[in-house]
């Protein structure tokens, strides 16, 4: 498994841990209130810390174990995998944006909009990282 594939697994774990915690513990009963908006902002801080900590720790661990591999530049296959994953993530991103546009006409609260936007970004990221991992595992 290449260094970049390992960091992708770390990104997936970080996303699942961070946003899994967020969506499971968010106080949905106050989502329609100003406090619900502040809760989003407040909870994004630990989420960001979780994701950065998981990714940094994993990258450092594997870079120390195999520094030569960590210093290798991204090659053409890895670049292609990167592009294909980003392309796959475009579709959930567009769907999420349209869902947000439609939600405006249903007069959703700011907190609900924020969470819908977050869910869109997280879904797109999961599709991006997930599809890249699939391509890494498949060979291309």
């Amino acid at each position, binding site marked *: 498994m*290449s260094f970049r594939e390992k960091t992708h697994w770390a990104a997936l774990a970080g996303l699942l841990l961070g946003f899994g915690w967020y969506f499971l513990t968010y106080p949905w009963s106050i989502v329609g209130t100003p406090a619900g908006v502040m809760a989003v902002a407040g909870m994004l801080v630990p989420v960001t810390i979780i994701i950065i900590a998981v990714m940094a720790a994993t990258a450092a661990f594997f870079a120390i174990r195999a520094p030569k591999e960590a210093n*290798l530049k991204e*090659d*053409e*296959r*890895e670049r292609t995998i990167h592009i294909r994953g980003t392309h796959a993530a475009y579709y959930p991103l567009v769907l999420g944006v349209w869902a947000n546009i439609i939600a405006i006409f249903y007069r959703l609260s700011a907190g609900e909009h924020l969470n819908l936007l977050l869910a869109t970004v997280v879904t797109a990221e999961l599709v991006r990282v997930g599809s890249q991992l699939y391509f*890494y595992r*498949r*060979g*291309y």
Partner: protein
Amino acid sequence: MARLPFGNDIRTLRFLAGEMTQGDLGERVGVTRQTIAAIEQGKYSPSLEVAFRIAQVFGKPLEDVFRWEGDGG
């Protein structure tokens, strides 16, 4: 996954070149070991540049490393 319309003899050529490892070949070509493995297994179609670089490492013409196996070959 669709099978690539060409095969290659990289594994044999590596063996004949003093049992060169995938990592060594990758280093000389400028790609990762995993990319060489994917090319060998016919999972990844390399760019023309990488194909030429692989042939150059073995001192062979391109057609001695890769061979067309598709229609109209």
